[in-house]
């Protein structure tokens, strides 16, 4: 009996350990970006972000002057009982007692540093990167050798506002239109009801690539390219089938007698819809809203095609992709920018996770 209990506990321990390992693997990528976004530009560029963890680091304890030791840099030198060439000392030679000798500078004017390994953490955090990625001006950096370098920042605030202007209507409009349609499919009788709903179901998985060329032609003809209306309508079109399908599933399940008693009281369809059905469907509306919002906020392709020509209307995802393309080595901008772009989705995600999961289970999966 006791053996079995022990085995059970050991099993649970193994489960916890494996899961912990997977969680760490899953979280480390995001953590790396997050930590780096607070480190200064030179630090990101010269050390791995894991330097924020306690680690052993060489630190100078004293200095030797090669001249006073009377060394010949062109031959084999002997310093503090170890011998090596100039090149070896340049990269550092370790002594048996755990010290390291490193030659700094050139052969004639250099000096030798005696270093010891110490425990260190690299906790020099600031919000500078965020200021630079949002602020839009140029910034000066001092290099370790004293020279000054001017690095342009980036103007993500603008892109952030544009993303808001695209994402909020692109979330609300399809939900409104889909809710009206779902109500009609569920509670009204009209010719073609079944055929039209089959159309909705069939369109669930149609890839949006199919629409891009013809719609772009229409937009050119209507002179709509590069406007907010164009991209709202596009996102509405691509999200509507799923929204209608999901909301129909929910609205058609609402208790019949509540609606019927409202009709007997003389309420019109419009009143029943706005005063009764919408409030009752709030959970379903919320879970689809989260999906559509995340989908639109994170979208890159649709924005690239319908807003692509207009730099003034650039969205967060486009801005980030542009920085990756043009300044892929500017990790201080990329890390902070990536976090700016994730901020809103993460807030929505964590505050409304319950609805999000419910939406997933109801089948919020886009074609």
């Amino acid at each position, binding site marked *: 009996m006791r053996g079995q209990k022990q085995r059970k506990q050991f099993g649970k321990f193994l489960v916890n350990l494996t*899961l912990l390992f997977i969680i760490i693997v899953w979280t480390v990528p995001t953590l790396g970006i997050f930590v780096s976004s607070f480190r200064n530009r030179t630090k990101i560029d010269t050390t791995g972000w894991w330097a924020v963890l306690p680690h052993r680091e060489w630190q100078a304890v004293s200095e030797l002057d090669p001249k006073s030791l009377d060394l010949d840099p062109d031959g084999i030198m002997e310093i503090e009982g170890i011998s090596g060439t100039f090149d070896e000392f340049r990269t550092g030679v370790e002594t048996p007692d755990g010290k390291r000798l490193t030659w700094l500078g050139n052969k004639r004017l250099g000096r030798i540093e005696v270093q010891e390994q110490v425990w260190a953490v690299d906790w020099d955090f600031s919000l500078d990167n965020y200021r630079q990625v949002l602020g839009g001006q140029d910034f000066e950096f001092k290099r370790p050798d004293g020279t000054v370098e001017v690095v342009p920042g980036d103007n993500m605030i603008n892109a952030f506002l544009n993303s808001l202007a695209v994402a909020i209507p692109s979330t609300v409009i399809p939900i409104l239109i889909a809710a009206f349609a779902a109500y*009609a499919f569920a509670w009204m009788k009209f010719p073609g009801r079944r055929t039209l709903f089959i*159309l909705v179901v*069939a369109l669930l998985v*149609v890839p949006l690539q199919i*629409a891009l060329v013809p719609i772009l032609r229409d937009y050119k003809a209507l002179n709509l390219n590069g406007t907010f209306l164009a991209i709202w309508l596009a996102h509405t079109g691509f999200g509507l089938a799923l929204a209608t399908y999901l909301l129909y599933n929910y609205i058609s399940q609402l208790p019949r007698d509540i609606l019927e008693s409202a009709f007997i009281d003389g309420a019109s369809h419009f009143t029943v819809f706005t005063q009764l059905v919408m409030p009752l469907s709030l959970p379903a509306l919320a879970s689809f809203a989260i999906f559509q919002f*995340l989908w639109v906020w994170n979208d890159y392709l649709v924005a690239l095609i319908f807003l692509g020509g207009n730099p003034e209307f650039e969205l967060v995802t486009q801005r980030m992709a542009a920085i990756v393309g043009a300044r892929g080595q500017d990790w201080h901008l990329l890390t902070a920018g990536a976090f700016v772009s994730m901020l809103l989705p993460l807030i929505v995600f964590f505050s409304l996770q319950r609805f999000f999961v419910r939406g997933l289970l109801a089948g919020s999966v886009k074609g």
Partner: protein
Amino acid sequence: MNLPGNEVRRQAPSGGMLNKIGHVLLAVVIPFVSFFILYLGFLFLRDSKASREVIVLVAIIWGVGGVGLLYWVFNWLVEKLPDPWKGRLLPFVFVGPAVAILSWYLAVPTLRTFYISLFDRNGPPADLNFIQQLLSGSFVGPANYIAVFTEDLMLQAFRNNLMWIVFGSTFSVIFGLLIAVLADRSSFEKLAKSLIFLPMAISFVGASIIWNFIYEYRPAGETQIGLLNSIVTSMGGTPQAWPQWVAVAPWNNLFLIVIVVWLQAGFAMVLFSAALKGIPEEMLEAGRIDGANEFQIFFRIMLPSIQGTLISVWTTIVIFTLKIFDVVWVMTGGQFGTHVIATQFYRQTFTNRNSGFGSAIAIILLVAVIPVMFYNLKQFREQEAF
């Protein structure tokens, strides 16, 4: 909610000719004013030089309010009509916009894209009629489809997309299932699920930056700031620019596929977790009493009972990886042998401006999802709830 009395009063014919004219006037004026306001909003958004904050605020109010206003106006108009007409038209006020938008954005484009795919790079000449278009030199028939299946880069894209579909969906499902099973038995289920799930909130562009940072490459001998190269060099290996590592092509695609597994495993986990919790405890208990070990319980009881979820998660991720675009486009731009169908579609349509070729690729994507479409329709017919 309307009181019954309200209804009666509204329908009672009161007043004479003047009143009727008033109603008609109102029915003309109100929609006209609404459309005019909406049009002004559109002009303001298109041409205004106001500050970004103002434009964004106006855009949100105009967009959201405008749709609400349109529904209200049309409903108001229809409710003015005599009863039989009201009953006939009202459903179409409700369902009409959805059907119109779906037709414009998805249903009709399938036909239009197919038509365009039969023409050369400029598509059907706009100034000719249908018959003339078919007879013109721009009509190339199946030539684009032949090119799609013979061009080197397209063949590479098909091969890579197959890798995406096979490895992407398989690993997402395996990890999702593994995590769901482990989390169910662990002491920190909620935390674990939240953290695994978190990448779902991150955009592909954001995820590409995150993983670019992991793959960051510095020449051998320098300090590696990318995690992967740092691990590799500390174990004595040579650093690589992983997704660009052409020497191992096509396997360098796996470094991109990892990103999608990282994003999608959370999705699979949530669905599997809910399905696993739905298995009745007695069934598992019965298995244990019969002497089955945990592995037998997993493979003989759990897996068969969540088969439906398994299939739907799998198809979802397959469709998803079939259309994968952002990750590849941001990480490599399709270079180093990493093109997929959707990046080829973009390259042909927008970089090469060959709309005929691009449309043919889009049709291939559509054909690939048709089995799933039929499956959905079959499911819908079987429900018989409609």
